[in-house]
């Protein structure tokens, strides 16, 4: 999931009877499956929750470019290089739609972005892990984008129109990304013993962070109930995590890789895979800035921003000069 621990400001979900008429009318529209659009009235807490969630999602796309871009110059073939470049470019496109979706809620892109740079805003914990080998590029596409799709398909039905529509396009691209990741893994698994070992190592390192990515278990997710009542979120973290595990475990077997979790087993009675305990302490450490790459990722974004300041200022100054000369030309 690209947005984790999104604060809704709600301690308990209100019933319709407890709401003022305007809020009640809003909730009834939500319950009837009618999308909320930027100019519609919405409770302030709903607006703020969306700003937090969509901006976190945008930041995740933008920061998420870094671990994958780390391998563009070293991709093993020209074809793989072209695919990876196009994929990372797609992530930039996703960030752009999502920052635009945040703007529809009255917050400018610069304001949103400065919150990331200052460390105030969060992005998905997963991008604080390093890409150490080429197989990590396969594992990210397969597992991280795989997790993202599981999370984002329900977001296509999110109650906020601009976010839902952005997700439709994002999901199409993500499903291509996932296939390319799996394709990299397949090539590695059919390759030399060294390549297969590289694939196994990447699976082992990315498996648990990919599960944690869906967010804390339901009993620890105080904000989920409100987000679900607003139909921003449609499924609980645990449901989505289970869905991801159920679809991915057979793929691990298909690749001929060892399962990364001794407790990962099909449970006939539940109709799902069982899995081992997730290390939530590690997850909260990474979310709170203590992951392996938190400092590097934020430093890289800050460096690009600071070193690009002269460029952005010059482009704005030129645009202003052009506007002025157009106005003079018109009079």
């Amino acid at each position: 999931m690209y947005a984790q621990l999104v604060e809704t400001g709600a301690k308990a979900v209100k019933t319709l009877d407890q709401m003022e008429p305007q809020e009640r009318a809003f909730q009834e529209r939500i319950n009837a499956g009618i999308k909320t659009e930027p100019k519609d009235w919405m409770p302030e807490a709903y607006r703020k929750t969306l700003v937090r969630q969509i901006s976190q999602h945008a930041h995740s796309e933008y920061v998420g470019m870094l671990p994958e871009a780390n391998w563009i110059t070293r991709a093993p073939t020209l074809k793989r290089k072209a695919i990876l470049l196009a994929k990372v470019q797609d992530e930039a496109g996703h960030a752009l739609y999502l920052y635009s979706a945040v703007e529809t809620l009255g917050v400018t892109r610069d304001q949103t972005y400065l919150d990331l740079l200052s460390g105030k805003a969060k992005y998905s914990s997963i991008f604080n892990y390093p890409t150490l080998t080429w197989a990590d590029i396969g594992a990210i596409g397969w597992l991280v984008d795989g997790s993202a799709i599981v999370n984002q398909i329900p977001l296509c039905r999110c109650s906020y129109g601009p976010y839902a529509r952005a997700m439709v396009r994002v999901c199409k691209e993500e499903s291509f990304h996932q296939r390319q990741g799996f394709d990299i893994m397949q090539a590695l698994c059919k390759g030399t013993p060294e390549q297969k070992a590289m694939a196994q190592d990447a699976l082992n390192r990315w498996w648990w962070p990919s599960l944690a990515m869906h967010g804390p278990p339901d009993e620890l997710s105080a904000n989920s109930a409100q987000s679900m009542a607003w139909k921003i979120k449609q499924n609980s973290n645990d449901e989505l995590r289970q869905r991801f595990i159920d679809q991915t475990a057979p793929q691990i077997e298909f690749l001929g890789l060892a399962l990364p979790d001794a407790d990962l087993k099909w449970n006939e009675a539940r109709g799902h895979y069982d899995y081992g305990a997730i290390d939530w302490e590690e997850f909260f450490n990474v979310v709170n800035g203590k992951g392996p790459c938190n400092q590097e990722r934020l430093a890289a974004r800050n460096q690009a921003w600071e070193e690009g300041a002269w460029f952005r200022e010059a482009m704005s100054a030129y645009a202003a000069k052009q506007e002025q000369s157009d106005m003079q030309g018109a009079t």
Partner: protein
Amino acid sequence: MSHKFQYLLRLGDNCLVLSQQLAAWCGHGPALEEDLALTNVALDLLGQARLWLSYAGEVEGRGRDEDALAFGRDGLDFRNLLLVEQPNGHYGNTVARQFLFDAWHRQLLAGLCESSDPRIAEIAQKAVKEVRYHVERSAGLMIALGNGTALSHARMQDAVNMLWPYTNEWFDSDAIDAQCASAGVAPAASSLAAAWRADVETVLGRAGLTTPTYTGHQRGGKLGVHSEHLGRLLTALQFMQRAYPGAQW
């Protein structure tokens, strides 16, 4: 080695090396829109490199494909212009390098569209459409940055001055150029100079920048005598194929 093979390596290596440089910006550009646009250019050039190098491998006839040529040659066998291997520097250095190259690249591809070799003409016809956009973009950025702020103006002038000595070797004609020109495979190297210069002077003029008068020049790229920068670029480019020889990816 045939002249045509050598000439195709020059075409392919220019695109490959420049694409590799631009790809290094991905995720680190000064704005999201620049990350998107510059990556487009990198992708176009990478696509062109693959077409040229694949054809070079066929012409050579020793069974080398695009990857064998990209990842299996050392710097001495690279035939790109020195300009494209000059470091990315700040974004203005990258923009200036791109503009000077794009303006030449467009003239070259326009000439190659008329090649007597149908495969070369076909690739050039595809590539020239992309490169027309590259020039439009890089020229637009030159004009904006040249006129933007005092700082951007100074940076762009410095960038142009620094890169200018690398813009002459393109027009030098050697045996390979002469042979390809006389066979109608490619336009004569020197024939592109006037149009390139006119285009560049127009854009620099609109950018409020001075065309450098320095006439000395750096040469050697087309013959495999490179600057120190190429070796480091190849270290990253070729790492995987060198570390895992013979593996399929």
